[in-house]
């Protein structure tokens, strides 16, 4: 964002007050803080408006493809490191379907992609796009495959370097596919297709990033706003260097020609899988692959979930009464907090004991035991309430609750509130297996 003084220089300096601020400088300060919109000034010149919009645009443009709820959002990132704030738009993972294999295979591939949906830590994770590649197929087959893909609730990438075939395929799609791709050889014709269809366009095939930026500028001048960049990424080293350089140029230098989301189109080899994971970590907005076997795509999606987790918000598990093993009325009850790391650690340690147990997860807004206790989010009252809501006394008839050793101080009060026997457990989760063996059977 420009500073208040930079904005002020572009304002009419009339101090008319019609924007509801006493002076143009005051208005500029509000603008710089994104508190008001430029439209509040009736006298701003079109030139100033264009200049301000340009400098106020996000460093990496937001580009959307697909339609409706399943539309894929890419770009609009503001950081190089997730710990500096967060990464906003998880890498879009897509499977490439080659039309050369025939329409039946493409249709079967579409079904495969729709089946790549998993439930992970309470979230639905999925392969979220499909790419239809013309390769050696005729323009008609390509168009038909495109139509089949676009009729699914999945964002689609159309892959052809033949502008005519691309125009035909794009005409069959109502769901705003991403067009892949314009190269130095076909850029003028592809830009026309993108303009007339209103679809976002991938620009690639440039020998270096300077040239890639030039091509993007050219497309932009010709009227295509929604651009995705494909830098060379034939090895992991090249992918890392180019993706990092593009992201840095956009964010640190506000270098507009490279201020777009990126795509990496990979194959099916072990090296491609490595680059796929690298792309998720290092700035690829879209990763397309020829093959997504379940044993690879599932951990890859776990990686995407991890990397794109907002570091400012702890990951939480749902509060409630969980079972470890197959507990009965005689099994012990323990509690912990709903910070996911705490929960998973405690759960794993109970499992190590090989004894079944009830695990009560108390809502602490995702804080760990000590943090929540210190912040008053884990109190005898909140634990007692959870015991009641989850009907713990009906599930286990021991009338006993094991509490984390770190919060032994709540024993008395908890006993008073619940009339349960309170047993102080180990201070560290790792002590749970040993502690469990000492519990009376």
């Amino acid at each position, binding site marked *: 964002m420009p500073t208040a003084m930079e904005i002020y220089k572009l304002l009419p300096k009339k101090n008319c007050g019609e924007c509801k601020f006493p002076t143009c400088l005051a208005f500029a300060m509000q603008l710089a803080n994104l508190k008001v919109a430029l439209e509040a000034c009736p006298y701003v010149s079109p030139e100033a408006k264009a200049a301000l919009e340009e400098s106020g645009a996000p460093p990496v443009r937001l580009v959307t493809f697909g339609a409706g709820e399943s539309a894929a959002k890419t770009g609009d990132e503001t950081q190089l490191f997730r710990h500096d704030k967060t990464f906003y738009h998880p890498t879009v993972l897509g499977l490439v379907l080659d039309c050369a294999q025939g329409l039946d295979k493409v249709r079967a591939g579409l079904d495969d992609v729709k089946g790549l949906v998993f439930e992970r830590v309470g979230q639905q994770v999925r392969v979220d796009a499909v790419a239809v590649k013309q390769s050696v197929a005729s323009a008609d087959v390509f168009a038909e495959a495109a139509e089949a893909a676009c009729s699914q609730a999945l964002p689609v990438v159309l892959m052809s370097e033949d502008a005519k075939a691309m125009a035909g395929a794009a005409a069959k799609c109502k769901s705003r596919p991403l067009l892949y791709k314009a190269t130095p050889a076909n850029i003028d014709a592809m830009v026309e297709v993108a303009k007339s269809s209103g679809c976002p366009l991938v620009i690639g095939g440039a020998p270096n990033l300077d040239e890639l930026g030039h091509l993007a500028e050219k497309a932009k001048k010709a009227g295509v706003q929604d651009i995705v960049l494909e830098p060379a990424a034939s090895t992991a*080293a090249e992918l890392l260097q180019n993706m990092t*350089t593009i992201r840095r140029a956009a964010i640190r230098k506000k270098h507009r020609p490279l201020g777009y989301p990126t795509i990496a189109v990979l194959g099916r080899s072990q090296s491609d899988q490595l680059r796929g994971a*690298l792309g998720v*970590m290092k700035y690829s907005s879209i990763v397309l692959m020829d093959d997504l*076997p379940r044993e690879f795509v599932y*951990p890859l999606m776990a990686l995407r979930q991890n990397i794109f987790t907002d570091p400012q918000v702890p990951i939480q598990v749902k509060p409630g009464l969980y079972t470890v093993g197959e507990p009965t009325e005689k099994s012990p009850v323990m509690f912990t907090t709903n910070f996911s790391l705490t929960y998973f650690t405690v*759960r794993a340690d109970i499992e190590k004991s090989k004894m079944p147990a009830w695990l009560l997860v108390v809502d602490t807004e995702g804080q760990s035991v000590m943090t929540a206790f210190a912040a008053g989010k884990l109190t005898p009252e909140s634990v007692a309430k959870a015991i009641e809501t989850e009907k713990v006394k009906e599930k286990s008839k021991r009338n006993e609750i094991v509490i984390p050793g770190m919060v032994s101080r709540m024993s008395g009060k908890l006993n008073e509130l619940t009339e349960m026997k309170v047993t102080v457990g180990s201070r560290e989760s790792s002590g749970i297996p040993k502690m469990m063996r000492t519990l009376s059977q």
Partner: protein
Amino acid sequence: MGFDGAKESFPGRIKDVTIGATAEQGGTRGKRVVVGGSNGLPFHKWESEMPHVPAVAMDVVDTERMVPDVLHGTLGALAKEPVEWARKCQEWGADMLVLKLASANPEEENRPVEACEALVKEVLKSVQLPLLVYGCGSEEKDAKLMEAVSNAGRGERLFLGLAEEKAYKSITAAAMANGHGVVAFSNLDINLAKQINILLLDFGMKPENILMDPLMAPLGMGLEYSYSVIERLRTGALVGDPVLQVPIICDCSCAWTVPEVLEEAPQKGPQLQRGVHWESITAEAAMVAGADIVILRHPETVAKVKAATAELRGGA
């Protein structure tokens, strides 16, 4: 235009740390492994030096208890034969070994110090790789154990672990007595990681004898915390904090404790291959964030990770 401005350089550099000693240095290892030495972000070869790619260590655990069922097909009888297991790791291409003496734990097998010491000697005799030796985590037992291990490995330039804020003196003293190094452990916190290094330095440990383990949480189990802690530790070192200019070691064998690896779940793909990907991606994330050594368990992961480092390093 032009992106020279996009190159970044840092004033700091990670120290070179050498693990193992050959006959020349008074040991019996077949080779030494040097890690660290970089003055830029991981694999940023276009703007910085990375003299050594991350090294691959394999772990050997001296009790079957720590080997999950899914690995029985791979490790088989080796899980009962740590010496044989160690030999296999050498064949599988490991750069170094981490021998975990978990059976010494008084809460578990409670194997006597003498037996553990004998095992260390046997492994040193059977395998030429540089060796790291981890205790069982019981402070009292490890104090005696590490003293014995240190003596058993005199001259070999072992690295002993894990030195923690609450228990670092005896293990560090044991290491210093015979010119070994230590692995400084901290629990997913950049300040604690710095704190343990300061304690070790104040205790008299030389910085070139320290590796730091900031706790690698496996994929899907808090990996993002480790990823960011490691990135921050590495940038902290590069911008000039001398206390953090220590190579980072990440134990990625933790992938084999993740419930999503230990469950059959055919809809998530064949279990063993899923596990190998799980461990590989964990290791890749560790290296991209800044790890100088990754500890692995499965031989296929070793091959994958070695291919990855070669490709990331590029032709130069």
